């Protein structure tokens, strides 16, 4: 019964989706010739591309959109990741770590030394990615994910290590607070939440883009610590 209803729903979604895409070309490509795209001040995306460089002095327009024009979304998104990390902890709370036979098997010396050598390099790459988020592809989310993958390596390579959960929690909370406070300073100074109140500097320089790099650093720390927390919680007692 459930199967038939599901297949019916599937058919409806398929038909609807296909019908929408049938009138090609769709999206920006389809709007290329139309009035909305040609006039820069009408279309959203065009406007950002043509004016974004002057307005935020931020070479990566996607970063500019993510952190400035649509920065409020990003705040929500960071909150969602925070919720997921907390919710995961709440759901798995009190779960007994089963004594696993594998635990006795220690990782070999080569493996654990290799992991310890590699870990700082991975951290460095992650930090580089989010510090340069406004200049080149990448940013807080990607850098944070790379940092978390470093912790993943530690989890897999050196089983004995446990992450310091208090420090992780502090990093999560403080970076989240930093984001909100930076945004609120904008409200206090210029009457607008998330306002880019710092001097924006010269394009392509590391110190450009006003508060954008600062926010991306906060996001990088937050995403990194949250994803690491998720990995730590889930891998806690690998059987």
């Amino acid at each position: 019964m459930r199967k038939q209803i599901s297949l019916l729903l599937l058919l409806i979604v398929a038909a609807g989706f296909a019908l929408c895409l049938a009138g090609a070309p769709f999206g920006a490509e389809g709007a290329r010739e139309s009035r909305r795209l040609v006039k820069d001040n009408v279309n959203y995306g065009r406007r950002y591309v043509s004016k974004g460089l002057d307005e935020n002095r931020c070479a990566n327009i996607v970063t500019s959109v993510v952190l400035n024009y649509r920065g409020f979304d990003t705040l929500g998104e960071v909150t969602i990741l925070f919720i997921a990390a907390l919710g995961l902890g709440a759901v798995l709370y009190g779960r007994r770590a089963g004594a696993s036979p594998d635990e006795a098997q220690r990782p070999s010396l080569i493996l654990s030394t290799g992991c310890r050598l590699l870990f700082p390099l991975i951290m460095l790459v992650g930090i580089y990615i989010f510090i340069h988020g406004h200049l080149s592809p990448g940013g807080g989310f990607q850098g944070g994910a790379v940092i978390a993958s470093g912790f993943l390596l530690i989890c897999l390579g050196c089983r004995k290590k446990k992450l310091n959960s208090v420090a992780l929690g502090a990093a999560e909370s403080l970076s989240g607070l930093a984001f909100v406070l930076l945004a609120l300073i904008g409200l206090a100074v210029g009457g607008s939440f998330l306002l880019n109140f710092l001097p924006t500097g010269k394009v392509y320089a590391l110190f450009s883009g006003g508060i954008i790099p600062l926010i991306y650093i906060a996001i990088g720390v937050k995403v990194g610590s949250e994803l690491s927390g998720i990995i730590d919680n889930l891998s806690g007692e690998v059987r």
Partner: protein
Amino acid sequence: MNFLTSYIHYVGCFALVLIGLYVALVKSNLIKVIIGINLIDTGVNLFLVATGYLGGGTAPIFSKAAEQSQEMVDPVPQALVLTAIVIGVSVLALALALAIKVYDHNGTLDLRKLKGLKW
């Protein structure tokens, strides 16, 4: 060839969303259902990015070499997809934690064998 250039990405995301929906709705293993949700997410992300694509456009990142690029693809869908990817991984992590708990309580991941609720 013309068909391919304008449609191939949409074909991909369309297929991913449908396969994902099929898995999520029809399969009865919990992890499999979560895999289905993951496939739907990927498909939707691909769809969003494809909406912003302009044939012959460049990535929306300025560099000293190409100061005034003639045409850049739409940056807004890319920003949206960055958000959607993170939302997707959050839901996924929570779902897997719940699945582990379900397994702890029932010793099975099969939806048909879960007696507590009517699925």
